[in-house]
């Protein structure tokens, strides 16, 4: 599998969750684990450009796919990704535990809807739980991110099924 552009071996332990593989085998601890049953969204990563729950995938299932984690959005020490920048400007994080998952979901949302409506914003972040912010600042951040939007992932997503093809 490719993780943040780097080829990585899949684990031998087939029951290892992708979230645990990223965190504990590859040291990419920016992907957080909040519930391990797919509700909280803290562990959201991009799989071939689309946000998915890494706690609801076995690591071996990512073999042959591209995984992007929060660490893969901005270069070390380089400028923040527009979504990250917007979260900072809008105080859309407090403890920061849910933040990577939110950011990855929003990257996916903006790839799907570059200029999201209010309802699209709301629904786009409605699969992620935050206990600190009350979401208002996150809504503002999504709108701000759309303004800043130069998402490098636009156009790569969504993966369309071959409609009748």
């Amino acid at each position: 599998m490719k993780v943040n552009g780097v080829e990585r071996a899949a684990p031998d332990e087939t029951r290892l969750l992708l979230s645990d593989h990223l965190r504990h085998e590859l040291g990419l601890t920016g992907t957080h684990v909040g519930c391990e049953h797919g509700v909280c969204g803290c562990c959201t990563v991009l799989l071939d450009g689309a946000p998915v729950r890494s706690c609801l995938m076995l690591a071996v299932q990512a073999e042959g796919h591209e995984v992007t984690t929060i660490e893969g959005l901005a270069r070390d020490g380089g400028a923040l990704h527009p979504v990250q920048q917007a979260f900072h400007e809008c105080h859309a994080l407090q403890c920061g535990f849910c933040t990577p998952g939110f950011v990855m979901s929003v990257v996916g949302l903006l790839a799907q809807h570059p200029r999201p409506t209010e309802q699209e914003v709301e629904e786009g972040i409605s699969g992620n739980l935050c206990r600190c912010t009350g979401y208002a600042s996150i809504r503002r951040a999504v709108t701000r991110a759309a303004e800043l939007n130069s998402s490098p992932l636009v156009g790569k997503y969504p993966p369309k099924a071959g409609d009748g093809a």
Partner: protein
Amino acid sequence: MKPPPFTYHAPGSVDEACTLLGTLEDAKVLAGGQSLIPLLNFRLARPQHLIDINRIAGLDRIYERDGGVAVQGLVRQAMVEDSDVVARVCPLLTDAIRLVAHRVIRNRGTVCGNVAHADPASELPAVLLALGGSVVAKSVRGERVIEAGALFAGVFETTLAPDEILVEAWFPSSSKPYAVIEESRRHGDFALAGVVRAGDQLALFGVAPTPVLADRLDPARGLEPSGDLEASPDFRLHLVRVLTAQAFAA
């Protein structure tokens, strides 16, 4: 909350998957995994073998056939949500998909997996039933079509044989007017009660062990819904009447 040990299989073809499923004791099919993996993590499911069908090529098509739309086994719910064919042929399915969990879950979850999981509170089985759709099941013994009305057997139970894989679901074109309306606690949650209207047909979900067809004039008749923390049997019957009235007023 880590999965218990199991033997993992990743067949490359439907035939290979069928052979595995036909020969292994206590095997489970892993498609999108959005229901199965939580069950593994809670250790509520502990199959000996996991047959991951995600490596099977050519099982991710959406296509028109027989006046409806066919959705193959590995089509993700998000693909259906975004599909022009589905929007044109069966917009009821497009509407219903948007009520399934959240986009991030739909990016991975499959339509066929959702149907095969047979959660009584799930939207898609009720849509299939209301439309009079069917599914295609495959095993080493061959392929058969199961009508929606004969598919759902109980809570999380279908009439699929233990060695069968659900490889395709077929949704007939949604005749007008159509509607899918549900009451859930939070956006994306399973419904406390829900109704699907397809023309004059009415199917209910969340109010019986399986989705059920009902009479629009007396939708709660004969129902004996279970109660849980968020809805008593009475409240479910009440909601069925309210939602049915909304669906047929539309």
